[in-house]
């Protein structure tokens, strides 16, 4: 193709033997032209990150190059000498990674790290002009107080700010092509919106080509000029954004679009019922001290929370990271002790429970955690992880194992999964195991703490469906914690919006989406990726218009 900046021509990569498929990439061809954003969409395992890594020659050692070419600015990158690629990396070809915390060196000031990116490629520039350039870059990426930000360490910055530093680093040498590998997946919705806007405006300003990798069609709808859909290492379809999104030809693309949560009708809340959980004036303040002589910093995680959940209800608590929503969940289960206030479960005072009462309470109130990788014991067979709970409550080992097998089947896994270890499962499967573990104790109340946030959009949809099916079958009451209003919309009867340890708005789901009363809620609604696209689409499709 003429005028192409990057052109990948029938690229094939081989996976090591014993992997779930033979080829990581199978004859993938795509082009990125200057001044356009190409979105590469696919589920995890589709090989989308492989493409990014192949361009920069960062492939894992076990992956072998088979066939095809990568041409950048008329230069063949495949099998180019290492020095050649090194010269391009970070100058003409820059990359932003998914996890801004691990992509920065924790022991060095962020300004130094960006400066390093500059003088690696330009030894002739003076130290003074480099530090000026760094400050200039920091203000371009919208870091507050750029002159002070240069001397901050990564841990002193929030996730969004770290990602801005990564972007500054990538832009340091005016790249012609920016590769962004899921740069917003680890961020919450409002920060994601800011980063997406930033990437878009910087791209337009500089006329860069951007290869943007994501699993979320909502994000695609917001920023893409052209779209490439990838599945199992093969290109399913590609074309301009409007072509693909409005008239997807392939069933798989359709499927990905349908998986985007928050587009069905809002659940109608039931009538008044008795309260299962009542929280009044709950307070918790964390006191953090960052250095030997630093002042204490007080963070209010809960500043007098008032909340009540009725039996059989699903309540979603929505907020950005740091709003205190996870602390709330942990205080309800007494994994963290509150400073003051009251938590009543079925009229019983949770904070005053003794050892025996607390144990019984924890059987009735269960939790599913966010990170399916950290919340299963890596040294225990998953069946044992599930069976431990019933055993702790007096079931015999045989009964407990039968219960565990039954639950594994019930959450859509095979009973033979019992003998396998957590690392042998995918993220979605692990989250199913965690759900089985929580429900095997036959609880009345389930807390899902960001239970789907770490999952791909398509897997998210499946896990959400599983949760709401099981909830209906067991008559559970559920507290669903999320940063994503789309997800809340999918599952909640009532939604509570939290910010800085306070409840901002508490309304039935329907009311919250149709007529939010608080500005903050409106800004959260506006941050949802792909909002406009899906709203337009659903109007044309069904004629109804209440959508997130």
């Amino acid at each position, binding site marked *: 193709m003429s005028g192409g900046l990057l052109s990948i021509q029938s690229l094939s990569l081989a996976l090591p033997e014993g992997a779930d498929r033979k080829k990581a990439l199978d004859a993938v061809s795509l082009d990125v032209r200057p001044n356009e954003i190409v979105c590469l969409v696919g589920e995890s395992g589709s090989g989308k990150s492989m493409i990014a890594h192949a361009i920069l020659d960062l492939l894992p050692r076990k992956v072998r190059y088979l066939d095809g070419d990568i041409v950048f600015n008329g230069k063949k990158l495949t099998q180019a000498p290492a020095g050649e690629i090194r010269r391009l990396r970070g100058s003409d070809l820059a990359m932003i990674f998914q996890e801004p915390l691990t992509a920065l060196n924790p022991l060095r000031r962020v300004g130094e790290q960006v400066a390093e990116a500059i003088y690696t490629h330009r030894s002739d520039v003076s130290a003074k002009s480099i530090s000026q350039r760094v400050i200039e870059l920091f203000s371009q990426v919208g870091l507050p107080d750029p002159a002070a930000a240069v001397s901050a360490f990564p841990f002193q910055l929030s996730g969004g700010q770290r990602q801005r530093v990564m972007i500054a680093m990538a832009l340091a040498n005016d790249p012609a092509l920016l590769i962004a590998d899921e740069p917003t997946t680890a961020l919450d919705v409002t920060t994601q919106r800011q980063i997406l806007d930033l990437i878009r405006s910087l791209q337009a300003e500089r006329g860069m080509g951007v290869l943007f990798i994501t699993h979320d069609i909502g994000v695609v709808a917001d920023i893409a000029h052209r779209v490439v859909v990838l599945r199992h290492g093969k290109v399913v379809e590609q074309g301009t954004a409007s072509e693909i999104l409005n008239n997807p030809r392939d069933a798989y693309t359709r499927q990905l679009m349908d998986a985007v949560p928050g587009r069905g009708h809002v659940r109608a809340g039931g009538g008044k019922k008795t309260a299962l959980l009542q929280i009044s004036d709950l307070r918790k303040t964390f006191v953090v001290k960052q250095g030997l002589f630093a002042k204490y910093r007080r963070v209010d995680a809960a500043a007098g929370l008032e909340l009540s959940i009725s039996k059989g209800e699903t309540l979603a608590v929505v907020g950005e990271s740091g709003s205190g929503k996870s602390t709330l969940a*942990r205080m309800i*289960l007494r*994994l963290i002790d509150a400073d003051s206030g009251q938590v009543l479960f079925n009229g019983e005072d949770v904070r005053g429970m003794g050892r025996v009462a607390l*144990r*019984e309470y*924890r*059987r009735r*109130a*269960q*939790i599913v*955690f*966010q*990170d399916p990788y*950290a*919340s*299963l*014991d*890596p*040294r*225990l067979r998953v069946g044992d*992880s599930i069976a*431990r*709970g019933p055993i*702790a*409550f007096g079931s015999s080992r045989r009964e407990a194992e039968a219960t565990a097998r039954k639950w594994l089947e019930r959450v859509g896994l095979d009973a033979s999964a019992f003998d396998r*270890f957590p*690392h*042998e499962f995918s993220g979605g499967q692990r989250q199913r195991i*965690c759900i089985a*573990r*929580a429900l095997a*104790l036959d609880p009345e109340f389930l807390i899902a703490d960001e239970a789907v946030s770490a999952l791909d959009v398509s897997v998210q949809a499946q896990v959400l469906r599983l949760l709401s099916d099981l909830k209906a079958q067991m008559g559970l009451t559920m507290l669903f914690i999320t940063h994503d209003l789309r997800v809340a919309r999918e599952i909640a009867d009532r939604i509570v919006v939290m910010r800085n340890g306070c409840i901002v708005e508490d309304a039935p789901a329907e009311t919250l989406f149709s007529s939010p009363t608080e500005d903050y809620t409106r800004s959260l609604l506006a941050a949802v990726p792909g909002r406009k696209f899906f709203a337009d689409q659903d109007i044309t499709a069904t004629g109804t218009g209440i959508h997130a």
Partner: protein
Amino acid sequence: MKDVVKTFLGRPTGIAGLLLLAISCLMAVSAPILYPASPWEMSGIPFSAPGENGMLLGTDTLGRDIASGVMHGARVSLLIGIVSTLAALFVGVLLGCVAGYAGGTVDTVIVRFTEIFQTIPSFVLAILFVAILSPSLGTIIVAIALVSWPPLARLARAQVMSVTQREFVQAARCQGQSPLSVMFRHVLPNAISPIIVTGSLTVASAILIEAALSFMGLGDPNHMSWGYMIGAGRTVIRQAWWMSFFPGIAILVTVVAINLVGEALNDALNPRISRS
């Protein structure tokens, strides 16, 4: 269990370590059969080089058989290394786990107590202890355990603290499991691998401490040990290298063997490695 054994045997280093360790153990077991006479007995001409006068590894300054000494020494070194490490592990891991899991005041008290031991130079403490209580196998083992447990306690505490914060531990608490069961089934198995590796290094250093004590003349006078032999031969090392060389090699081989076994054990106990 089968996977664990299989992974262990699949590591060349594990097999090598096991073989070397087996040789040490075999020496310890067969010493009284191959050399029924006491290793202290003067059985040859002093200063015989290896092979001279019918002595396989030569004799020392008093004509004692080096080969017999090395064989009998294996018994003392292995016994002291293993028993004192087990004792140190027991104390260290117990205190470390309690401190790490309980936190708060309990943690502070245990850490301060550990620090008292850490501020005293450990070898001086061991010497004092043995010198006051008169040298015997028992006092040497207690002395070595006494100076070896603090690092193990610190390590166990740090490990337990970091594992306790992981979500699967919270999930186990939410399942209603008792603190003891959470500790032994979830926290400890996930915290144990660096402790095992350090433990195997502790066996090695216990053997070295015993050797050093014997070298200073504080060994058990009834038992020949490698450290004593090196100590006795050190003054004439330039004329008769074999007197300290062979017991030195014995210490080296045993310590390396224990380290190799510890490393392979660490891999084998991790299902991530053993099941892939």
